[in-house]
C-alpha cells in the first residue's frame, strides 16, 4: 500500500514532518499531500490501495510508524485499527461540497502530473482551443463566469465577471492580473491551504482570468507568514513554466502570461486592493482614493484586476463544469460554495466548504460538532476584524452575503471563530480593535486616531474603569469612523464593536456598572477564591502561585490573599479538585 502524509502547515505543526521521516526510514513508499482540512485530527496519514483510499489514520504519532509500515506491507489493517478515523469524524468531510478545495489533501501539491491527472489544466486548454476544441473568446469566458454567479471570496463579494469585464474594457495595452493571497484575517487560512495543497489550480484560475481580461503579466501577492505556500507555489510556477503552461505562447496558442510571486511583508491593510498595489510597487501599503478603481488605474497606473485565491480556485472548475453547475448551488444572491475556517471553541475545527444557503447551525453544529468541552455556544465571529459576532439566536441565518450582512457581520474571507460562555464579548471587541488599530495604515484621520480611541475605551472597560456613557461614545465613534474612513479597513473596523454592543449589551453594562466580567475573562475584574469544602489541602495551588498569595497548611483548606493575587489562574489550573473558584 502507498502511504500519503498530509503536510500542510497545520499538519506539519502537529508533527506530520516527524511522522513522515519516521516512515521514510522504514522502506515504505511515502507520498505527500496537502491539507484535507481536518485540522483537529492532524497529523493524518492516508493509506492507498492503488487509487482506493483504504484507510485514513488520524492523530498519528512518530511512534506509530512501525505498525503503519507493517499494515502497509501486509495489507492487514488490524494493527492500526485504533488510528482509523471514526465514522462520526468522516462526516466532517462527507457533509461538505468541495470545489475550491477539490484537490486539497488528495493530490500531491508538488506534482504537476498529479494535478494534470485530476483534470488539471484542461480548462485553460479548452479555452485556448488547444484540446482540439474551438476554444473560447475572452468574452465567452467572462460570460461563463457571469453565469456562474461567482463573487469575490476575499470578503466584499463583488461579482467577479464585473471586475473582469471592467478590466477587459479598460483602455490600455498593458494590463495586470493580481492574486491577493495576503490572507490577513486572523482566523482564516483557506487561501494558505489552497496554495499549499493545490497551487496549480490557483495558477490555472489565474491563467483563465489573465486570458479573459487581456493581461500578460500576473502577480501573486502572498503573505510573508506563509513560507511553505511560497515554496510550493514557486515550484508549481517553475513546473508550469517548464510545461509551457506559463510564459510565452502558452501551449502554442499565442497567449502569453508571466506569473511572479511577491511576498508581502506583514501589513493587514494590504488586503485592500489599492494598498496591495502600493505594496507591489514597493511602497508603504497605504490605500489610494477610489476612484480611479484598479480596473482603470492599478499597478503602475495600468488597468489591473485583483481577485483572491479562493475565487481563482473556483474558476477552472466553472469552465470545465459550466457556470450553471456552479450557480445551481446556493441562494438567490449567493452562488456556489464557500470555504470556512472553523476554529475557536469548536469540537471539530478545520476547513469546511459548503454550498451557500446552508445555515450557520448546519456548519457549526452539523459539521463542526458544536462547542467542545460540553460548554454552551455563545457566538460565532465571522469576517474577522471587519466582521462581527453573531449570537445563538441568529444561528438559522443562511450563508448568504446579504443575510449575513444584515446581522452586522459579513461573509468575509470565511473565518468562523466559535466562542463559548467563557469568552468575554467586550474583550473580544477589544481584541479586534487592538488588531485594527495596530494595522491601520495611519493615512486617514478617522481610522488612524478613531480606532485608537475605540481601543482605548474598550481597554478601559475591560479593566474595570468604564464610565457611564462609554457605550454611547463607542457607538458614536463607530458611526463616524464608518462614514469617514478612507478604505475598507477603517470603514469596517467598527463592526466587531457594533455587533457586540448590539447582541451583548448586557456584558458591556456589567463591566461598566457592576465592574464584573460575566465570562470571567477580564483579569482586572476576576477574583479567585478557594472553596473550603472542596479543598483537600494538597498544597498544589500554593506551590504554583508565583507570588505566594496562597496560604494554608497540609490537609487543611487553603485561602487566597486577594491583595497579593495576580489573577494568573495558575492555582485554578493546578487544583485537581475544582476547589479554586473564579468569581
Amino acid at each position, binding site marked *: 500500500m502507498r502511504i500519503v502524509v498530509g503536510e500542510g502547515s497545520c499538519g506539519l505543526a502537529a508533527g506530520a514532518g516527524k511522522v513522515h521521516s519516521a516512515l521514510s526510514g522504514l522502506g515504505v513508499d511515502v507520498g505527500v499531500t496537502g491539507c484535507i482540512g481536518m485540522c483537529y485530527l492532524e497529523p493524518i496519514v492516508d493509506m492507498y490501495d492503488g487509487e482506493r483510499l483504504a484507510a485514513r489514520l488520524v492523530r498519528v504519532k512518530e511512534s506509530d510508524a512501525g505498525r503503519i509500515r507493517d499494515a502497509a506491507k501486509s495489507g492487514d489493517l488490524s494493527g492500526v485499527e485504533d488510528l482509523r478515523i471514526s465514522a462520526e469524524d468522516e462526516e466532517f468531510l462527507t457533509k461538505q461540497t468541495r470545489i475550491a478545495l477539490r484537490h486539497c489533501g488528495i493530490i500531491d501539491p508538488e506534482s504537476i502530473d498529479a494535478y494534470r491527472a485530476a483534470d488539471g489544466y484542461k480548462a485553460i486548454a479548452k479555452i485556448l482551443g488547444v484540446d482540439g476544441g474551438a476554444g473560447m473568446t475572452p468574452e465567452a469566458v467572462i460570460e461563463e463566469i457571469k453565469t456562474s454567479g461567482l463573487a469575490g471570496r476575499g470578503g466584499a463579494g463583488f461579482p467577479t465577471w464585473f471586475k473582469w469585464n471592467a478590466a477587459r474594457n479598460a483602455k490600455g495595452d498593458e494590463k495586470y492580473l493580481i492574486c491577493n493571497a495576503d490572507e490577513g484575517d486572523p482566523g482564516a487560512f483557506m487561501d494558505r491551504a489552497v496554495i499549499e495543497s493545490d497551487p496549480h489550480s490557483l495558477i490555472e484560475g489565474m491563467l483563465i482570468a489573465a486570458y479573459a481580461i487581456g493581461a500578460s503579466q500576473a502577480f501573486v501577492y502572498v503573505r510573508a507568514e506563509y513560507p511553505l505556500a511560497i515554496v510550493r507555489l514557486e515550484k508549481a510556477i517553475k513546473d508550469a513554466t517548464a510545461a509551457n503552461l506559463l510564459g510565452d505562447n502558452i501551449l502554442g496558442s499565442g497567449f502569453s502570461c508571466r506569473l511572479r510571486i511577491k511576498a508581502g511583508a506583514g*501589513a493587514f491593510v494590504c488586503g485592500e486592493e489599492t494598498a496591495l498595489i502600493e505594496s507591489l510597487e514597493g511602497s*508603504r501599503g497605504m490605500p489610494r*482614493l477610489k*476612484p480611479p478603481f484598479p480596473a482603470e488605474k492599478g499597478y503602475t497606473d495600468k488597468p489591473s484586476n485583483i481577485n483572491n485565491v479562493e475565487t481563482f480556485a473556483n474558476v477552472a472548475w466553472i469552465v470545465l463544469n459550466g457556470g450553471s453547475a456552479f450557480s445551481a448551488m446556493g441562494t438567490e444572491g449567493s452562488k456556489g460554495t464557500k470555504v470556512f475556517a472553523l476554529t475557536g471553541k469548536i469540537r471539530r475545527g478545520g476547513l469546511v466548504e459548503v454550498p451557500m444557503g446552508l445555515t450557520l447551525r448546519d456548519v457549526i453544529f452539523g459539521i463542526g460538532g458544536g462547542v467542545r468541552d460540553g460548554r454552551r455556544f455563545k457566538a460565532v465571529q465571522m469576517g474577522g476584524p471587519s466582521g462581527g459576532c453573531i449570537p445563538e439566536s441568529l444561528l438559522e441565518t443562511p450563508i448568504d452575503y446579504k443575510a449575513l450582512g444584515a446581522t452586522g457581520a459579513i461573509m468575509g474571507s470565511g473565518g468562523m471563530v466559535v466562542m463559548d460562555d467563557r469568552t468575554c464579548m467586550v474583550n473580544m471587541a477589544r481584541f479586534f480593535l487592538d488588531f485594527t*488599530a*495596530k*494595522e*491601520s*495604515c*495611519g*493615512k*486617514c*484621520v*478617522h481610522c*488612524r*486616531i*478613531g*480606532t*485608537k*480611541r475605540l481601543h*482605548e475605551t474598550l481597554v478601559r472597560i475591560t479593566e474595570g474603569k468604564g464610565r457611564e456613557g462609554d457605550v454611547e461614545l463607542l457607538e*458614536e*465613534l463607530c*458611526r*463616524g*469612523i464608518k*462614514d*469617514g*474612513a*478612507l478604505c475598507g479597513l477603517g470603514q469596517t473596523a467598527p463592526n466587531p464593536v457594533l455587533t457586540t454592543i448590539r447582541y451583548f449589551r448586557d456584558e458591556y453594562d456589567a463591566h461598566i456598572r457592576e465592574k464584573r466580567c460575566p465570562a470571567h475573562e477580564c483579569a482586572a475584574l476576576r477574583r479567585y477564591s478557594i472553596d473550603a469544602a472542596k479543598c483537600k489541602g494538597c498544597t498544589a495551588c500554593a506551590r504554583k502561585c508565583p507570588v505566594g498569595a496562597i496560604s494554608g497548611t497540609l490537609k487543611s483548606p487553603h485561602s487566597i490573599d486577594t491583595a497579593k493575587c495576580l489573577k494568573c489562574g495558575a492555582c485554578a489550573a493546578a487544583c485537581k479538585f475544582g476547589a479554586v473558584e473564579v468569581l
Partner: protein
Amino acid sequence: MESEIVNLVIDGKAVSVPAGSTILAAAEKAGIEIPNLCFMKELKPYGACGVCVVEVEKCPKLLRACATRVSEGMVVNTQGERALRARRLALELLMGDHDGDCQGPCKLNCPAHTDCQKYVKEIAEGRFADAVSTVMETFPIPASIGRVCPHPCEKACRRRLVEAPISIAQLKYFAADRVRADGNAHKVNVAASTGKKVGIIGGGPAGLTAAFKLAQWGHDVTVYDQMPEMGGMLRYGIPAYRLPKDVLKAEVDAIAALGVTFVNNFKIGRDAEFSKLRGWFDAVIVANGAWKSSGMRVKGEDMDGVWGGIDFLRAVAVGERPDIGERVAVVGGGNTAMDACRTAVRVGAKEVYVVYRRTRAEMPAEDIEIAEAEEEGVKFKFLFAPDEILGTNGKVTGMRLQVMKLGEPDERGRRRPVPVPGKFEEIALDSVIAAIGQRNDPEGFDDLPKTEKGTIAADEGNFATSLNGVFACGDTVNKGAGIAIGAIAQANEAALAVDAFLRGGEYRPVKPIVSERDVTERDFADRPKIARAAMPQRPAAERIRDFDEVNLGLSAEAAMAEAKRCLECGCHDYQDCKLVRYANLLKTDTKRLRGAFHTGFVETELVSIERNQRKCITCNQCVRVCEGIAKKGILGLVGRGFATVVKPEFRDSVAIAGCADCHLCVDNCPTGALRLLAKKA
C-alpha cells in the same frame, strides 16, 4: 472633451463647471467653502483628512469633495447632518492628538485676553512702541494697569515651571513709560464719525476703556464722573506710591485727545436724573463702580475713628490728611487692606496692625504687597477677627479680637476660619480701618433691575441691561467688585455690544475654541534657569516718608532680558491655522477625544525650519510637497497607524543634507507644526 460642461447643484446653488472638476472645485466656484486639511491644487488628491466629506443625493456613502468628480445633475449637500458629524469627528479626533497650544496661558488667563506673549516678544526685540500698540488693542492705560494689576497672566505663566513667571505686568508698564518718555505715543486711528452719541457714567478702568474703543470707532463719547478727576478707583483707591497720579493723568489725557468729552463732578441723581441723561444719548454705559465700604457688622463700628478702607484711601487721595492717630488697625487681608495699612504708615501712624482671620497663606493680597507692608513696619495679627470696637464717648480706644483657628475647607478650597470659644484679645487703638469689601451704590439708577446683591443686572455676555440702549459693566454689575482688568474685559464686550447696537445689530460674544496643553515641570526640565528680573525699589525707611512711587522701574536692558525668558507658548500660526479655524467653525470640542498623544520633540537644529511633532496632524502635506513639487523627497512617513510620524528629523544632518531650504513644507502646513526660523549663521 475639454469644453464639456457639467451642471450640478451644491447646497441649493446651481453650478456649472468643466467635466472632470472635483466637487471641491465646483463648490469653490459657487463660493461655498468646504473645509479641507490635506488638499493641494498642485498635487493629486490624497483624501486623508476626511474633513471635506459631503453628502451626494442617491449616494449611500459620504464622498470626499477633494477627490470626487462632478457628474451631470449631481445634488451635493455640504451641510448635511451626517457630513457635519463625520467632519466634526475628524476635527475632534485631530484635536485629541494635537498639542496646538493655540494661545499662551498668559493670554488665556487674562480676563481681557490681552496678547501678553506678543508684547513681551516685542519688548524682547526692543520694539517698545509696538508693544504698547499691542496692549492698546485691548485697553488704553498700560502704564497704569501694568502697575496695579494682580496679573493673572503671570499666575498662568509656564515659566513658573522653570523657576519664576515672566514679569509681564512690569514689562508692560516699562514699555508704556518708555514710549511716553520718548514722546513716541501710540497713534490711534479714529474712524469717521458715525454721528451717534454714547454717554458713559463712570471714568474708571471700565468707563475709560469703553470710551477709548467707542471713540476709535467714530462715536461721540461723553464720560461723566462724580469725582474731580478721571480714573476712578485707579486714582482714588490706589495710593500714589503704587500708581503716581501723573502717570494716570497722562493716559487719561491721551483718551481725551481722541475727542472723548470728560465731565467731572457730575453725579447721577444730583446733577441729572438717569432717565434724563438717557435722553441725551443713543446709548449709555453705566460703569460707576463700587464705592461703598462694606461694614464689619460688629458692635461699635459706628464710632468716631472707624473708617471704611476705600473711604480712607479716597480721603488721602484728594489731599486730606485724616486724623487716624498713632495706633491703627486695618481689618482685612486683600489688596485694599495692604493699600490702607501702608497709607496709614505714610500718613503718620506709629503702630499699624493688619487684623486677618486666616493666616498669611490664605491672604488674597499679592505676596509682594504683604512683603512690602512688612518692610514698612506693619504688624500682622493672623487668626483674629474683630469682635467689638471698644471706645469711650463715641471715640475708638481699642478693639476686642476673637481668636480664630482654621477649620474645614470651603467650596473654593480655602480653609474656613472658626472661632476658638472663649478666647479673646484686646488691643488699644486710635482708629480702625475696615478694608473688608466694597459695594456699588445703586442710588439714582432705580430704573435698572438689580441682582440679589444689589448690583445692576446685566447680560454676562454683552452687558446689556433690560433697558433698551443701556449697558452696564465693571464693579457695579452682577458679581460686583473685582480687579481692574476684569472690569476692562467687560468694558470691551460692552463697547462691542454698544457699537453693534448703534449699527442696528446685536452682539453676542463667541468664546474662541483653542487647543490647550497640559504641562508639568518635567516638560521643561531641560531649560536653563534664568532669574526673574528684580524690580529696583526705594528703601523702606525712605519710602514711608512720602507718597512717591516705591518701584523705580526696569531699565531697558533688564526689561529686554526679562522678556527674552518668555517660553513663547502660544502658537505662531494661530491666525493662519486651518485646524483651529475649522474647529471654531464646527464648534469642535478639543478635549473630548483625548487619549494617547504624540509627545515628541521640537527640532530647531540644522536648517531654518522648526518642526514640532506635538502639533503635527500627519496630513502628509509636507511630505507630498517635498516629493512632488520640490522633488527632494527628504521627508517621509515613518511607522504605521497611530504611531506614524513625519521623518527624518531636521536634526539628522545626513538625512536632511539635500534640503533646498525652499520652505514649501512650511508654507503648506495647515497647522503650526512647521515654522520658518531666521536663517542660521
